[in-house]
């Protein structure tokens, strides 16, 4: 029997997983223009300041339908920047994350609808107040049971973690007996109330008023509580010039009336009861697709880069694990056990918030994201590599060695090509796991797909539909990846 197969190059077969990778990466790159969630504004000259802000605090900061950052804080800051001649680079990473970033000098300042408190004034320097805040209670539109603070007796109230609403609610608890649920984002609070997991929520009046205009399905009840003022903050003793510029610019905007225009643009008919007709599902889908696709790009890109790095590291540690050297094996074991034995999120927080404190310079969010995914992935890939090498019949190496081939040549030409074929399905599986795990990076404010979805439903309040859409996008992306992987695998093992 004569086979008509073309003589295959021995190098082509082991490289097949890499070919797959190359194809994927090419897809990511062609789909990607600029990464990250930074938007620059202001004049072309002057210093550039990195400003941290909340991710979902409409109307102070939120993503518009086009996926771009907008809101009262954003417009104010950029108007001031223009007047004072500096540029702004936004890090919209969530309220708590922004403050952590400020403390570790990852950002120069934070403007995030943040109340000026004595506690905060001890660790940050505040600007002149730029907004007077009130806290207000809100309940679902159809709820007539709760109309005053006293009606909260025996109920559950959602508040924002670490914010003034939490402090004030605790004060109220001294007079009225109700339960507190502390949540991280305004959207989550709204959703918690709408799903009945809390009876009411307490948040800043402008936030709630804006939500009503956007169809949040809530109504404002009870007397608002005056809670003082919002201020822009820099780290204690740092960025004095930025703070002075902010104060000067703010005064100028108030003088010219531009300040009122900006605020009115977002609050408008603040207490209006008229709920606008929400857009249809497909209108909404069209509106939010650009933002979600940008998130998908970042998801694919960070996963692709991290997978390449994880492959390199995983191969290295996998070889170390099968080496005869006790020290190398020991190092590989420690690496694998550490990264398999710790949650991904711990490392995401460590690389983004903890590491700058050690090395003294800020860590780029892409670097932190790639490191997190790559090191975790490398631990699993190292085990896949070890398993692949060890599952090649020992007789193969013996035959190669008995021909006089050295250890290196035996590995490279005989053992590894076969090991790679065995490893391919597991490697593809690992790639899919990493793609899904990349959604955890939203916790440090990395603008991947799920993070973008949060931004979207923070401003349109269509939580259920948006999450369905996101799940569908993930599913389709992973399904396509699996099909491609199966195709490549069939090619290899034919």
């Amino acid at each position: 029997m004569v086979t008509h197969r073309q003589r295959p190059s021995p190098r082509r077969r082991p490289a097949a997983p890499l070919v797959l990778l190359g194809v994927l990466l090419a897809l990511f790159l062609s789909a990607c223009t600029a990464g990250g969630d930074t938007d620059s504004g202001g004049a072309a000259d002057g210093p550039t300041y990195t400003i941290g802000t909340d991710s979902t605090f409409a109307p102070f900061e939120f993503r518009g339908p086009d996926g771009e950052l907008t809101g009262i804080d954003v417009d104010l800051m950029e108007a001031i920047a223009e007047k004072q001649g500096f540029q702004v680079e936004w890090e919209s990473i969530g309220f708590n994350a922004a403050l952590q970033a400020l403390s570790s000098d990852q950002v120069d300042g934070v403007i995030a609808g943040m109340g000026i408190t004595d506690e905060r004034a001890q660790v940050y320097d505040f600007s002149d107040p730029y907004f007077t805040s009130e806290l207000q209670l809100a309940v679902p539109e159809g709820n007539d049971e709760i109309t005053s603070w006293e009606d909260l007796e025996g109920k559950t109230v959602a508040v924002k973690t670490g914010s003034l609403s939490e402090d004030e609610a605790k004060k109220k608890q001294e007079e009225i007996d109700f339960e507190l649920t502390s949540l991280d984002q305004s959207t989550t609070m709204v959703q918690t109330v709408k799903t009945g997991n809390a009876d009411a929520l307490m948040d800043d009046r402008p936030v709630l008023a804006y939500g009503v205009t956007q169809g949040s399905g809530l109504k404002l009840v009870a007397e608002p509580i005056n809670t003082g003022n919002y201020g822009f903050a820099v780290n204690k003793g740092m960025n004095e010039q930025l703070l002075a510029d902010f104060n000067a610019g703010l005064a100028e905007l108030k003088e010219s009336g531009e300040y009122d225009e900006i605020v009115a643009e977002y609050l408008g008919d603040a207490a209006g009861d008229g709920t606008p007709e929400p857009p249809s599902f497909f209108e909404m889908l069209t509106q939010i697709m650009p933002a979600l696709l940008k998130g998908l790009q970042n998801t694919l890109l960070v996963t692709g880069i991290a997978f390449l790095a994880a492959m390199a590291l995983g191969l290295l540690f996998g070889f170390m694990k099968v080496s005869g050297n006790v020290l190398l094996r020991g190092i590989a074991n420690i690496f694998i056990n550490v990264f398999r034995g710790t949650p991904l999120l711990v490392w995401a927080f460590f690389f983004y918030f903890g590491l700058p404190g050690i090395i003294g310079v800020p860590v780029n969010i892409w670097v932190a994201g790639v490191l997190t995914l790559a090191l975790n992935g490398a631990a699993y890939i190292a085990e896949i590599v070890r398993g692949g090498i060890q599952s090649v019949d020992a007789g193969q190496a013996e035959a190669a060695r008995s021909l006089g081939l050295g250890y290196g040549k035996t590995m490279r030409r005989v053992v590894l090509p076969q090991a790679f074929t065995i490893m391919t399905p597991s490697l593809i599986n690992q790639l899919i796991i990493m793609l899904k795990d990349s959604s955890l990076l939203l916790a440090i404010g990395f603008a991947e797909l799920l993070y973008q979805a949060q931004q979207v439903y923070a401003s349109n309040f269509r939580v259920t539909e948006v999450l369905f859409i996101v799940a569908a996008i993930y599913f389709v992306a992973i399904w396509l990846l699996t099909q491609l992987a199966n195709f490549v695998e069939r090619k290899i093992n034919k």
Partner: protein
Amino acid sequence: MKAPVNDTRPRPEAESAAPKIVVEDLHKHFGDNEVLKGIDATVAEGEVVCVIGPSGSGKSTFLRCLNRLEDLTSGRVLIGDDDLSDASVDIDEVRRRIGMVFQHFNLFPHLSVEENITLAPVELGLATKQEARATAQRLLERVGLGDKAQARPRSLSGGQKQRVAIARALAMSPEVMLFDEATSALDPEMVGEVLQVIRDLADEGMTMVLVTHEMGFAREVADRVMFMADGRIMEQDVPERIFDAPQTPRLQEFLSKVL
């Protein structure tokens, strides 16, 4: 400790030649298990030695010590002038001169038949790709597989695979060939074609050590038969005397079972 009861020398023509392999007091342990308990042996140039014995007697381990696929626990193995017990010896260089054929063929499944044969000569810089391919074709014709150069190992029968494995070993122009139960994994109808190739090698004067269960073949092709049991060489002699006049009770018992 010396086990041989009947230390008859090999055939005169082999006796006169220089020893190719010298084994002195070879011991091999696997953990606490002593598999070889002091082996002394010589193989002369051009000599064909068949090693027989019950399973677990250490014959395969003994063979694998001859190219140090197994590390030696103690004792010496000399291949020509090279002492395998010396850690500084270039073992890869020595192995080039010793071809080995395995029970399970161990062809490289990701390479074609031709690539199996040319891999080592080309990788080690002993031949250009073109020369190696010419050699491979010549060797394949010699083992009766001239039309299989581009085939994949998995498309071959067991007997064909083993003949390719022999061609692969021969491509290194070895001075010695070791066969580790080369026909044990074959279907009966394929044993003959492999034995024929080995027989041809013997006729050409190749120095060979064969661990085998084919008693008829051992009788026919061997210059000398070694009987091993319990990690020792119990008896060695020309085939006629081993098979027709066994001296030790162990060999008598063994032959009564296998013949």
